[in-house]
């Protein structure tokens, strides 16, 4: 078993680590406080090739593997979750379906602007009545005179309404009859009449990332907007979610690590009863436990990524990784706040933001309960 990263993976990880510390860290608090989308950072990440890491070079991507992508997501989340989710949702939810199933024309149209980060892509699966039960799609697309006419609504869609959002890939019922059986994916460009991204939500965390409800009212797109085969939508989104979990799991590890970094630094500085609090056994136990759990989870995430890169089945490992890292991030950020005492409750300290940013990781891209279902099913239950 080889635990070493390749030179390229290390170099990318170190570069993103450096970038996150020097470019993201100084603005993270302000972006969060003002709920401002990080346009400048996205543009810089685009220049460095971080907005298209796992896509082929011929389409402007980095030509790197899933593990490289996971490393980059981890390092970004270690400093700021909003920036990380913007990149991760754009990559594994937004751009990936077009890369996997797009026609040459669709790829030529979209991939260069997406992989360069000049445009963002979103993935619209969740609906008011279709969250965990994502197949319960109520959005309907009917083929009329060579156009899809879309009606319906989507909920909680990341990257959908920024100034640089290019398109959203949505699931819609395209079946005849009652229109409920057949689900397909359609690419809808921003600016298409009848497609509206609503006001951003007021969220608990991920404040600098863009999340909105979408409505489609007699929204017409050309027949050629169909992504992949008609009726493949269910299979496609299951596959997208499988891969997406690796990125979200990398976020969990990164956030937990970021919380631990802050906790250790603070514990060494802060003095009580005449000594640094890092000398107290109770504080040391927290730090030691977290570091052990983070290291174990990290290995699981990397393994899921490596399985995917090798072309092996990775559904089980990815779901396991997502399940344990989400919980770990929640616990790690809570402990980091605890180690900070009252200061941890104050926004000047990053752990305060980390704590708010953590909870979504047990919910987004499949709740913990959904991961448990996926895992149990994989185990034959």
């Amino acid at each position, binding site marked *: 078993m080889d635990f070493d990263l390749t*030179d*390229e993976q290390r*170099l990318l990880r170190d570069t993103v680590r*450096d970038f996150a510390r020097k470019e993201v860290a100084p603005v993270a608090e302000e972006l969060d406080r003002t709920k401002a989308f990080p346009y400048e950072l996205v543009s810089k990440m685009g220049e*460095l*090739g971080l907005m298209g*890491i796992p896509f082929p*070079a011929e389409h402007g991507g*980095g*030509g790197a593997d899933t593990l490289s992508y996971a490393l980059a997501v981890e390092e970004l989340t270690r400093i700021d979750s909003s920036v990380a989710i913007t990149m991760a949702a754009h990559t594994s939810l937004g751009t990936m379906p077009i890369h996997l199933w797009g026609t040459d024309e669709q790829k030529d149209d979209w991939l260069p602007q997406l992989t360069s980060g000049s445009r963002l892509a979103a993935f619209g699966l969740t609906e008011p009545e279709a969250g965990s039960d994502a197949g319960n799609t109520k959005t309907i697309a009917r083929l009329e005179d060579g156009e899809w006419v879309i009606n319906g609504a989507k909920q909680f869609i990341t990257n959908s309404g920024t100034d640089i959002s290019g398109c959203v890939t949505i699931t819609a019922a395209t079946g005849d009859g009652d229109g409920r059986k057949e689900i397909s994916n359609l690419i809808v460009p921003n600016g298409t009449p009848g497609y509206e991204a609503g006001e951003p939500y007021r969220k608990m965390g991920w404040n600098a990332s863009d999340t909105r409800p979408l409505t489609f009212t007699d929204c017409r797109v050309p027949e050629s907007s169909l992504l992949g085969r008609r009726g493949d939508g269910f299979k496609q989104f299951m596959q997208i979610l499988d891969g997406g979990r690796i990125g979200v799991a990398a976020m969990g590890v990164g956030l937990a690590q970021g919380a631990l970094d802050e906790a250790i630094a603070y514990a060494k500085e802060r003095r009580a009863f005449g000594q640094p609090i890092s000398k107290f056994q109770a504080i040391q136990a927290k730090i030691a436990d977290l570091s052990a759990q983070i290291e174990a989870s990290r290995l699981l995430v990397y393994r899921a990524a490596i399985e995917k890169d090798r072309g092996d089945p990775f559904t089980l490992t990815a779901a396991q990784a997502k399940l344990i890292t989400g919980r770990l991030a929640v616990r790690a950020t809570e402990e980091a706040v605890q180690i900070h005492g009252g200061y941890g409750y104050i926004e000047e300290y990053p752990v305060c933001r980390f704590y708010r940013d953590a909870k979504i990781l047990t919910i987004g891209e499949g709740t913990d309960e959904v991961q448990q279902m996926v895992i149990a099913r994989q185990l034959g239950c």
Partner: protein
Amino acid sequence: MKICCLVKEVPDAAVEKRIDPETKRLDRSGEKNLNPFDTHAIEAAMQVKEGGAPVEEIVAVTMGPDSAVRALHKAVALGADRSVHLTDAALEGSDVAATGYALAKVLEKESPDLVLLGQQSDDGECYTIGAVVADHLKMPSLTQVIKMDAADGKLTCERQAEYGYDTVEVELPAVISVGDAINEPRYPSLKAIMGAKKKPLDSHGAGDVGIEPDRVGQSGSRTAVLELRPPPQKEAGEIIEDEDTNETVEKIVVWLDERKLI
């Protein structure tokens, strides 16, 4: 014009440094990275090239074990066109004079118009390799350069001296060590990272560049490390709570006066 950049692999800044008491050498296990000062040297080379000077080639040169190849990969990802790795068991344990001699032998073979290097390494911190290399190559040398303009076969450099700045003109070829104020190194792009291994890398043993075996390695080094000690622990400072500002000022003045600092 051909620019050679000397680059060194050093323990990552985040790794706690430890000295091996047996060998009296730095424990170099754990994460390593390209010496941060050397990234400034490469950036300086890139800026000379991008500034319009006719630079045909930027070559990264290192002396070090197998793992040092990673430092070269980073160097080419940052913009160098190719790299040279001097590696040989005979070189292990070389001191500054021996290292500088060995590097000079590689450089002789390359015959660059400009040698750029970081002013100091993050681990050895001797600040001397530039001078040693320049001496062997019989080239003029400047240290702690923080501004550099290339024109008509000459460089105009600004040096960061202790009490101000020197502006010095130097004829090429020359050896210039740069300070970190000289520039803000770029990040390597993912494309450059993925392409790093495609750039040529030559590996030389000591004999390949005419290094005389008795002038390198532990036996060829005429310095020996006798003892290594960690720096003394700093005493905890005294914190004066500011309850009444006049009183506080008084206390600080008394404190400074006791120590003959005012």
